[in-house]
């Protein structure tokens, strides 16, 4: 098995560091933000850009290493974007429901037809 060229190592390393940076910022967001719905935003950094960078690094590294195009890491991106919405939408709905029951301020009312309200 051949070694990968230096520039590939540099690009792969940069992608991995970038991914780590975004996951770190996403965790920082969890720590700093106080509101539940604000906290719903930063995790998206980890499951989009963070995972995209790792996937890209994987495709590049293993394609160069085995000297043929290795595309199956793409499945990570596809699977993540298919499964993540299920939990996210569920969490948001539960949070809204609980807030309405608790009568918290700044909670939007139940959606109805515009002409009803």
């Amino acid at each position, binding site marked *: 098995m051949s070694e990968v060229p230096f520039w590939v190592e540099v690009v792969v390393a940069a992608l991995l560091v970038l991914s780590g940076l975004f996951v770190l*910022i996403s965790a*920082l967001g969890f720590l700093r*933000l106080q509101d539940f*719905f604000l906290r719903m935003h*930063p995790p*998206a950094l980890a499951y989009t850009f963070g995972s995209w960078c790792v996937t890209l690094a994987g495709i590049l590294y293993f394609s160069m290493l085995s000297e043929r195009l290795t595309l199956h890491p793409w499945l990570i991106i596809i699977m993540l974007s298919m499964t*993540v919405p299920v939990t996210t939408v569920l969490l*948001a709905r539960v949070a809204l429901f609980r807030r309405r029951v608790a009568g918290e301020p700044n909670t*939007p009312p139940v*959606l109805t037809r515009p002409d009803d309200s």
Partner: protein
Amino acid sequence: MRQRLLPSPLMSAALLALWLALARSTSMGQILLGLILALVAPWLTSRLRPTRVRVRHPLVIARFILRVGHDVLVSNFEVALGVVFWRFRRPQSKFVVLPLELKDPLGLAALSMVTTVVPGTVWSELALDRSALLLHVWDVSDEQEFITRFKARYEAPLREIFE
């Protein structure tokens, strides 16, 4: 007969491709296993899908995927900067109610994927009659402009694809 055997040919093709990609081989045995999966899984789950999938305009789909990818990148940097500079500038995040014209359940599912994957928006609630959507938006200064942009960018192509 063809209906029964292959309730959703696109899904079967996707499952077979997925199986072969995961197995990383195209040997006879793997193709056979993949075919079994591709035939049995859609058949078992066909009752979960109330409407038949009709997907048209592959070019629109391709352009839509690229557009979402681009927006995800932009939004990633927006939210990341917003978190890092949280102490100096608070983003104007709020709930936005969007009037919806898209009624197709699959189109709505696709729209929920888009809003979840884009870090700046969180799908919060869909009106029972599907006439409106509640989104939590990370940073929005002009609500009306956001609604117009969102509808033109995502809802219009999805209606073109699914309706």
